[in-house]
């Protein structure tokens, strides 16, 4: 799966999780840029990502990504791994 494909799926998950159908994240988007992306919703997002992509994050990875690009990279590394 390419980064663009991952990003596209991730955008859908973010819109669902953050209850914002108009959300248009970029690779540089951080939690600071999305009002609903708080620590609680981040956990829900990671649960949704694991289910959607069939991956499993290590404990330290769950809170490690600092922007969408890093999250995409993490998902890709899991899919490639």
């Amino acid at each position, binding site marked *: 799966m390419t980064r663009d494909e991952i990003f596209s799926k991730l955008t859908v998950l973010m819109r669902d999780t953050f209850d914002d159908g108009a959300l248009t994240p970029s690779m540089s988007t951080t939690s600071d840029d999305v*009002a609903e992306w708080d620590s*609680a919703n981040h956990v829900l997002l990671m649960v949704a990502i*694991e289910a959607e992509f069939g991956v499993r994050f290590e404990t330290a990875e*769950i809170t*490690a990504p600092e922007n969408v690009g890093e999250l995409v990279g993490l998902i890709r590394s899991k899919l490639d791994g």
Partner: protein
Amino acid sequence: MKAPLNVLLFGGCLLRRPLRSAPNLAARIDHKRYGRIRVVHSFSEMFQVVEFLRGQKEIPQELRRLTGIAPETVPVPNAADFHDIDLALIEPGSPVDIDFRGIAINRTAIMDLLRPIERQSKEAAKLCHAWARTGLVGMNDEVRRELGAQLSALVPDDEDRELRRSVIAETRAVKNDTAAGFRKMRELLGCPLGAVVFIFRYMPDGRPIVWPAGSREELLAAAGQLGLPVFEPTSLVQEYGVATALEKDMQHYRQAFLPIIGEAIVQFAQNVYERSRAEG
């Protein structure tokens, strides 16, 4: 084993509620000797509790609800050196110290204060969260000022109007240092300390989540430097399973699990005490 042990608690509901539910608690742990100390998350709140108990710092009654000090709590003479305390359990649960007019305030109390604004609309709730998370705790002054001005305009006209507006305008946060925090607590209390890991939430399969990233490692490193025993609740949660151990928020313990985790905390406290005795 001395019983009951006199224990000071500095932490949030993941430490306090289970301990209070531990079987046969009164015979084993006395945690009320210095009055009612409520939830504290940051080290500055903990220092403030000590200063208050010693009579070195006054907390105006109208601000008590923003702090860990209950309205009826008063300074205690023995707090001069805490000679009657056997140990303290410390659960740091905030990466930042939050200050309002020289008073260390609690992040949950701020959100409680903002609740009437949060309930006005979805947009107002987003504004509250963004101000608190990005502006205040995230220490982004531009966001704090900008969103604070918007938030201030939504403050309802009730008896807390001025307090809410003041808190929004004047509250600041600074990053705290875990090792320095533990070191200062040890100096202030002069008794054995036990460190308790704050787990922010759990994944559905029981993996623990710490927030912010790296805070658990910071605590473990600090405890290692200072030779402090550490209590981690994770293995017990995983042993029983999240469905048994946790509420739906995947953070707070279920009522039926409180005595189980409480028993583990009591045993940890006893171990901290015994270890300090053995080390002289």
